């Protein structure tokens, strides 16, 4: 089971800045465990954000992204009280969506 993301979104004039802290192992598939066996890759493949249901950011990630990654992006429009939803899907098919309200 995955842990919730921490999402903060702030509107300033035209621009809304969204900062997301994602909780994920992001295993690169290159590490070996104590027994010398390769730890299988486990990482977020797709991450996207919607503002009132409309996609404002989407990205494809790979194994080079760090554990517990931090994402920051901004988009035009959006005002205090609007809803931001961020979703990810990893290579095991696990998925998670969390929501926040623009401050």
């Amino acid at each position: 089971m995955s842990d919730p993301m921490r999402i903060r979104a702030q509107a300033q004039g035209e621009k809304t800045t969204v900062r997301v802290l994602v909780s994920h192992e992001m295993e690169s598939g290159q590490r070996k465990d104590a027994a010398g066996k390769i730890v299988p890759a486990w990482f977020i493949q797709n991450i996207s954000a919607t503002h009132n249901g409309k996609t404002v950011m989407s990205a494809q990630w790979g194994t080079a992204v760090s554990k517990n990654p931090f994402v920051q992006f901004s988009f035009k429009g959006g005002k205090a009280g609007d809803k931001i939803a961020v979703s990810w899907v990893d290579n095991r098919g696990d998925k998670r969506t969390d929501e926040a309200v623009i401050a």
Partner: protein
Amino acid sequence: MKLSLLGLAALAVLPLSAAAQKSTAEGIAEYRAMLADGNPAELYEAKGEALWKQARGPKNASLEKCDLGKGPGVVKGAFVELPRFFADTQRVQDLESRLLSCMEQLQGFDAAEIAKTNFGVGEQKTIESLVAYISGESRGMSFNLPQAHAKEKLMYEVGKKVFYLRGGPYDFSCASCHGEDNKRVRLQDLPNLTKQPSASLGFGAWPAYRVSSGDLWSMQRRLNDCYRQQRFPFPGYASDATIALGVYMGVNSKGGASTAPALKR
């Protein structure tokens, strides 16, 4: 001509090496500031708060009745007064050893078993999240460790002895690195833990999220790594020696602010 110019340039740079050092420290500070915006310790704080309130263990109880020194269930402000003496266990305890007591008494876990577990595994993982939550509740508050009880005073003196104890293949002590101003290892500035304001800058930053290992480290894990670097045998988890060191550094940090859970490279 080009070569001699280069030589001149190199000569000109030499006297500036002190200034270059300074900018390295500034560079690291800048890197930390960039990361601080999204300190993954926040994820552990959220997890720790949930774990504190969740009924767990053989007795299926939460930790909400755990007394961290300010009364059962009081979390805010408890961290900056630890380690302190606890009447029920008749021991001076730091945050981790106190949590072990609570997990044993309230939840029915085997404290000795958890103390033997490797860092980052099983219930040790639980403790890492708990210390993030508990220290985070005292963020910005000033250290004010009680020193009224005789055992607390004794632990301070023991901690001082341990801090200055030289040994191991390197003939090292904690004081070899942390007993003077302006020391560093590679590019990291080393805080002088014997006096303020540097003591609280060092002591007050742990627990912290360690980017290089992608884990949240408690003070116990930090001390364990200090001893690894000194090539000492590993100290026992939540042992009196480590708690005494906590008392020594904590009392030296009096008045300084806690920034835990902080972010480290």
